[in-house]
């Protein structure tokens, strides 16, 4: 029983950064912007979140620093990809290269330092319930925040006027523009939101997942978050399932070691990336009848007179 509980708990922890980053990217992509810079924004969020918490001793300020850092990088991407209509694929890669470099630069003096990890919720009686107690009532704040966030996103996209406008901008920017909506401004806001989420996802790694900073500690989670958005067919509900699934795959290596399976650790570490390939293929096959991606995803929109 204890083992099942431990596995479930670690799945939640491993899924949370994926869910946070993918939630933000989902909004950006629904607005028609493909930002491949998630990995870079996560890394900078991780290092700035750590730096904030290390200086002030406060997890909340650390998380805030991570969010602000993610937004700052996303603003750079928005200026390039929306302001100057630069190819989004290339601009996103530039963002990841820059973010990785900046994170290394900022983080160099922080390697080897440590902080106290984000506190976990502890309710008398509830948290002590067998099996589900710690799972439902014993997580850190950011886990609850990420679930609240994706619920809010699902509601806004499906039920509100804001969601409708956002989807219109992603599906048919020309019509949205003709109706009088400022496509560039809406897309920019969506990208900044995505940056904030990616920054928070990175900060989760240093503030809650491991209470220290190591270079390159996102280890490709940003790319997996991008794949998750495709996996979820741009739907918030499926995103939760996808994040849990990939979280489970990525913690498999820890427990495989514990069971003493004679599998090379590198193979276990490669599993999330290996799993992504057939998943992307299957998803593309299933939707062969018609793409479910936002129709204008990845295309620049330049109003002409």
């Amino acid at each position, binding site marked *: 029983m204890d083992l099942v509980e431990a596995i479930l708990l670690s799945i939640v922890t491993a899924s949370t950064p994926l869910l946070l980053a993918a939630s933000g990217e989902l909004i950006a992509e629904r607005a028609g912007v493909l930002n*491949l810079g998630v990995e870079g924004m996560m890394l900078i969020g991780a290092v700035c979140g750590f730096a904030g918490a290390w200086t002030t001793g406060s997890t909340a300020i650390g998380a805030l620093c991570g969010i602000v850092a993610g937004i700052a990088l996303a603003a*750079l991407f928005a200026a*390039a990809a929306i*302001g*100057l*209509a*630069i*190819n*989004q*694929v*290339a*601009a996103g*890669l*530039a*963002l990841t*290269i*820059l*973010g*990785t*470099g*900046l*994170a*290394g*630069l900022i983080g*160099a003096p922080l390697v080897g330092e440590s902080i106290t990890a984000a506190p976990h919720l502890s309710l008398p009686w509830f948290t002590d319930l067998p099996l589900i107690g710690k799972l439902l009532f014993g997580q850190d704040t950011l886990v609850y925040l990420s679930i609240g966030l994706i619920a809010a996103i699902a509601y806004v996209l499906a039920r509100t006027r804001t969601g409708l406008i956002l989807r219109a901008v992603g599906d*048919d920017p*020309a019509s949205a*523009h003709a109706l009088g909506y*400022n*496509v*560039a401004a809406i897309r920019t806001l969506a990208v900044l939101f995505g940056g904030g989420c990616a920054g928070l996802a990175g900060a989760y790694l240093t503030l809650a997942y491991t209470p220290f900073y190591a*270079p390159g500690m996102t*280890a*490709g989670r940003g*790319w997996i978050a*991008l*794949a998750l958005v*495709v996996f979820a067919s741009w739907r918030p509900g499926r995103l939760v399932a996808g994040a849990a699934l990939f979280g489970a795959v990525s913690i498999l290596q820890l427990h495989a070691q514990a069971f003493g399976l004679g599998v*090379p650790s*590198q*193979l276990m570490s*490669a599993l999330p*990336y*290996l799993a*992504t*390939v057939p998943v*992307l*293929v299957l*998803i*593309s*096959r299933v939707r*062969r009848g018609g793409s479910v991606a936002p129709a204008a995803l*990845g*295309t*620049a*929109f*330049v*109003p*002409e*007179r």
Partner: protein
Amino acid sequence: MSLVLERRSERSVAIALASPLLAITLTLLTLAIVFAALGKNPATALAVYFITPLTDGYSLQEIAVKASPLVMIAVGLALCYRANAWNIGAEGQLLIGAIAGSGLAVVTHGTNPGPWLLPAMLLAGALAGAGYALIPALCKVRFGASEILISLMLVYVAGLLLDYLVRGPWRDPAGFNFPTTAEFDPAATLPLLIGGSRVHAGLILTLIAVAAAAVLLGRTLKGFEIRVVGTAPRAARFAGFNGDRLVLTTFAISGALAGLAGIIEVAGPIGHLQPDISPGYGFTAIIVAFLGRLNPLGILASGLFLALTFIGGEQAQIALKLPQDMTGVIQGILLFYVLACDSLILYRVRWGGPQGKALHGPR
């Protein structure tokens, strides 16, 4: 009222020519500010990165050695990007090429196999790189899956496979437990062009690749097809050009070149297989391709420039105590400016209110 882009009626030739230089100038100005913010003298720091490496023979040779893989990979990527096929995983193709070629060196170690070994290693590297690149290409063509994400995921897979091999089955038993294979035999090592230096025969292969790509793009029907499919997909369909087959072809070529660059690095400057054989050549080559305007000769020049940032970065570590990550910052800033300046070739920036229609497809 805000800044808006206005499409130029024709491409600005003046800006097209000045654009890479403008991008480099803006990068240098931005870096001066960054260095000042880091508490370093901007003039000294810029000199360490961009001038000192040009002043002694050893650094110049090192620039050539570093530029070689960058140019070779970027030439292949340029073919892909011109055809609107987004191979982002050249780093993984490089690693697989290095692994495949090294496999031959490891198996034949100490057996004195003869002169066929080195060509066989290079061929194995190129074929493995091409095969690895065909995975995302096939997934895209057959199933419509994102070649960007799949080629990227395979980078991590290749890196972990390399790690497994050099720590496990291929580890040198006499290597004091270091994760590396034994030093390659002379028959498995690339000959040097200049004795006593690190300048190796791979440079010639790079120059051949540049020349071949220039001829392919400029003088052949296939090159014309690549250009048409990339710039006018609809016209290409009317002309009967097969876009899917072109994705496969360009991915295979770029993968082969990346794999070749990988085995050349291992059989040349490094001399054995180890966990880190590339400082991100596959990713930096993307910048090289764009800075070189997706043109083989331009790539030759931009490859030398990006190699300069690597060597400058190594010197700055010693002279300025700046971490190696500064090189990534420089490269990221440079790519942003390169792309931004290219945007000015197509658009004019002015103040005004927005109105108009959509522009379809990534440029």
